[in-house]
């Protein structure tokens, strides 16, 4: 009986706090993405011919994101039924957008206006330990072109 109470309390607080935190995070992502919109990120492997920057630099950003209790339970249920796991899709999306933003912030520090050869690497750092935090790490990195003239 006590177990059930604890379980539903965890579920409810996960649902409420998780939702609020997620909404706040998405708002902040959108705002910062607008601010950093002039730093362009490309996945092409070479610098564009018109950009002849005097300097290049490796920049990167990472983020480790975890899901709330409610999503973990609903994700576990999904793995029984199959299909799209929406709960985890937002988890990876948040981590990825956050990592890209941090990479851009890093590039901004050096005065770069372009990042080429952007690579994204996703790894689950607590794999194989089911009673532990379900979380993913995303690392975004690329080469910032500093001081080249654009267009």
């Amino acid at each position, binding site marked *: 009986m006590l177990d059930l109470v604890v379980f539903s309390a965890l579920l409810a607080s996960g649902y409420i706090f998780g939702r609020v935190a997620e909404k706040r995070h998405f708002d902040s992502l959108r705002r910062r993405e607008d601010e950093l919109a002039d730093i362009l990120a490309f996945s092409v492997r070479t610098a564009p011919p018109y950009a002849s920057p005097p300097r290049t630099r490796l920049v990167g950003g990472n*983020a480790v994101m975890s899901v709330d209790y409610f999503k*973990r339970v609903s994700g576990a249920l999904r793995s029984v039924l199959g299909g799209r796991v929406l709960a985890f899709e937002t988890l990876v999306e948040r981590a990825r957008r956050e990592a890209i933003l941090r990479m851009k912030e890093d590039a901004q520090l050096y005065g770069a206006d372009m990042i080429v050869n952007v690579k994204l690497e996703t790894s689950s750092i607590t794999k194989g330990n089911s009673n532990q935090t379900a979380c993913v790490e995303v690392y975004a990195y690329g080469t910032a072109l500093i001081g080249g003239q654009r267009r």
Partner: protein
Amino acid sequence: MLISNIEVIPGKTVIRHLGMVQGNTVRAKHVGRDLMASVKNIFGGELKGYTELLQEAREEAVARMVAQAAAIGANAVVNVRFSTSSITAGAAELYAYGTAVILE
């Protein structure tokens, strides 16, 4: 030391190619961070402790790679790649590798 993940640095020419250099580090999380993480476990969100830990570990892997490149007389490492793998639950390996070259 110039580090880059593109193969051709604009405006620079490779005059000598010195082969692959690499650096790695295996990190485990400490209990305090794990404790905070299990609280986060309920509410979700970013695990700042882990983010910092992995970033530090990655910097160390790069530093080892750079030390190796410096030892063989390179002045740049190009085409750098990163890779992360969790070996056991609770420990992760960060690996950085690239090609050591001498740029003009």
